[in-house]
């Protein structure tokens, strides 16, 4: 799950107060993705935008299709901003008839793209008006009930392009556990959990018992398609569609590598500095995050309507106050912002989204695969996370494609995220990439 937006409302971290939101650095905003898009978040929560002007026909078209419409010399030019470039798809007369023509042309391009992706990656996509599942609605007493049926829509060209970019570098994580098919991507027209704002969810079993990914309403609106586009648009821009797809496909990889047992999950979690803790009252398994000095932190809440907070813990996981005395409630415990915890962590999370080891791992995997620049950032920022993600990735490749009789993997992942045959040249390329970064780090 990529639930970035939620935490703008639910984390008590100091930087999540309104004032802090507007004073955050561009780097913080970028890393947090949608999180700090306060007006947009309000729009989502309340269902209306403040001071929203009626959209022009061209703007409506842009929103629907994820392409830019530029006017020049009496013509509309339909531009897909992808891979750091402007790709002109078609042009029409700058009038209603032109828009109508463009609708038909883009629908054709979309159908072709879907057919390509289904053929190459075995994935599939939701259709307009398709039933998904009934919405969950939480009541004031914290109980839940089912609401209305959520309808799906089909993806637009921008979404297909972002997912396509991710699929080429996330292979084979798009496949279901038995490898017979790929995940199904759904685009929801209502939030799956009402009032609970997320970007996307990985689904272990959809209505047809298939592994799937849900994109929440509005998750991709105005987003850069790829990480290159995010860079081009400035660091203050949002999570790209490509990045969200990578993150969710990492969750699919976790499912395929059997993270469903505590034993397997903890094996990976411990590599990232997370320890299991059993709440003595509820017997829920929670997670403790280890700091550089072996101190422990826990993200918890007292009540379902409360914000989650990062708190200090004793060596056995119990909450502690400023004086180091045990306390039973989150509100009485010594609290930290997520940035403080990130800085204090023994294994630094690669982004600000690290609510538990699964999410921290998915974010690391996203950076490892998405492109060479992000992989470099991961290795520079968090070498232990890099190593864990690399090991996990190779394990998945070996499980899917097998090993040579010599025991060597058949495929490895090159620094740009593409799978390559495990040759001496390919290994040397990776080694050179990693050593170059490690040398720079040592000099620092």
């Amino acid at each position, binding site marked *: *799950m990529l*639930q970035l937006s939620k935490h703008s409302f639910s984390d008590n971290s100091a930087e999540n107060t309104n004032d802090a939101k507007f004073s955050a650095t561009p780097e913080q905003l970028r890393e947090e993705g949608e999180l700090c898009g306060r007006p947009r978040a309000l729009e989502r929560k309340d269902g209306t935008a403040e001071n929203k002007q009626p959209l022009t026909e061209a703007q409506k078209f842009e929103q629907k299709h994820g392409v830019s419409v530029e006017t020049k010399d009496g013509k509309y030019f339909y531009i897909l901003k992808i891979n750091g470039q402007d790709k002109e798809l078609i042009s029409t007369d700058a009038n209603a008839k032109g828009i109508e023509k463009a609708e038909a042309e883009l629908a054709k391009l979309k159908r072709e793209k879907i057919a390509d992706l289904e053929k190459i990656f075995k994935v599939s996509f939701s259709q307009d008006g398709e039933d998904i*599942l*009934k919405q*969950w609605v939480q009541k004031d007493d*914290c*109980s*839940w009930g*089912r609401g209305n049926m959520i309808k799906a829509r089909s993806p637009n060209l921008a979404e297909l392009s972002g997912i396509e970019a991710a699929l080429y570098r996330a292979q084979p994580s798009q496949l279901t556990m038995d490898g017979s098919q790929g995940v199904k991507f759904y685009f929801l027209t209502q939030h*799956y*959990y009402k009032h609970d704002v997320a970007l996307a*969810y*990985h*689904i*272990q*079993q*959809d*209505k047809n*018992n298939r592994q*799937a990914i*849900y994109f929440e309403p509005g998750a991709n609106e105005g987003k850069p398609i790829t990480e290159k586009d995010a860079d081009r648009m400035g660091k203050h821009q949002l999570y790209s569609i490509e990045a969200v797809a990578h993150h969710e496909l990492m*969750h699919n990889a976790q*499912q395929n590598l059997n*993270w*469903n*047992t*505590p*034993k*397997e*999950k*903890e094996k990976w979690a411990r590599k990232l500095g997370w*320890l*299991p*803790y*059993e709440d*003595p*009252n*509820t*017997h*829920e398994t929670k997670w*403790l995050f280890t700091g550089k000095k072996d101190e*422990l932190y826990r993200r918890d809440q007292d009540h*379902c309507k409360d914000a989650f907070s990062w708190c200090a*813990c004793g*060596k*056995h*996981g*119990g909450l502690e106050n400023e004086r180091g005395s045990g306390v039973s409630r989150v509100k009485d415990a010594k609290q930290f912002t997520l940035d403080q915890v990130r800085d204090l962590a023994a294994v630094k999370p690669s982004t600000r989204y690290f*609510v*538990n080891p*699964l*999410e921290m791992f998915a974010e690391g995997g996203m950076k490892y695969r998405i492109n060479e620049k992000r992989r470099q950032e991961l290795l520079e920022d968090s070498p232990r996370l890099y190593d864990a993600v690399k090991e996990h990735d190779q394990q998945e490749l070996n499980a899917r494609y097998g090993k040579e009789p010599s025991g060597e993997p058949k495929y490895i992942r090159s620094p740009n995220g593409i799978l390559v045959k495990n040759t001496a040249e390919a290994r040397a390329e990776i080694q050179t990439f990693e050593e170059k970064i490690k040398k720079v780090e040592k000099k620092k």
Partner: protein
Amino acid sequence: MISDNTSLISKEWRPEQGWLGVVPGHTSIKDAIDRLGGICETAEMANGFSFDFRDGLIRVTSLQQQGTISKLWISGVLAEQGIIPGSLKYAKSMFPNLHFVRHDSTNAEIYESPGIRLAASTGNEDADVMWIEFFPVES
């Protein structure tokens, strides 16, 4: 060897019955290990120990300074063997008052009833049970 709980599955379950002969809060660690097959892998938690059986498909935990089992966890994979209910619908028929309490980021929807907690896959109203856990009801 692990016996199945067909006698329990056929009737409405009560927390004091436990599962697989293990009653969290009452069964000692030694008895639980004996009942669950004798061979297990042990790992340390922040506030206790875990004991994994069948390559992690069954786990019991024990909190510090308690000689008894604090929780029994069973993977949904074992539903095929009739050890636990395989679907949410079936589970609801066995465990009274089982209700949705939250979703978590392990792609699961969590249901609870006194002494029991289970995870079902998100995305399907009669999803497979991903795991089920039993714990002392008096807590």
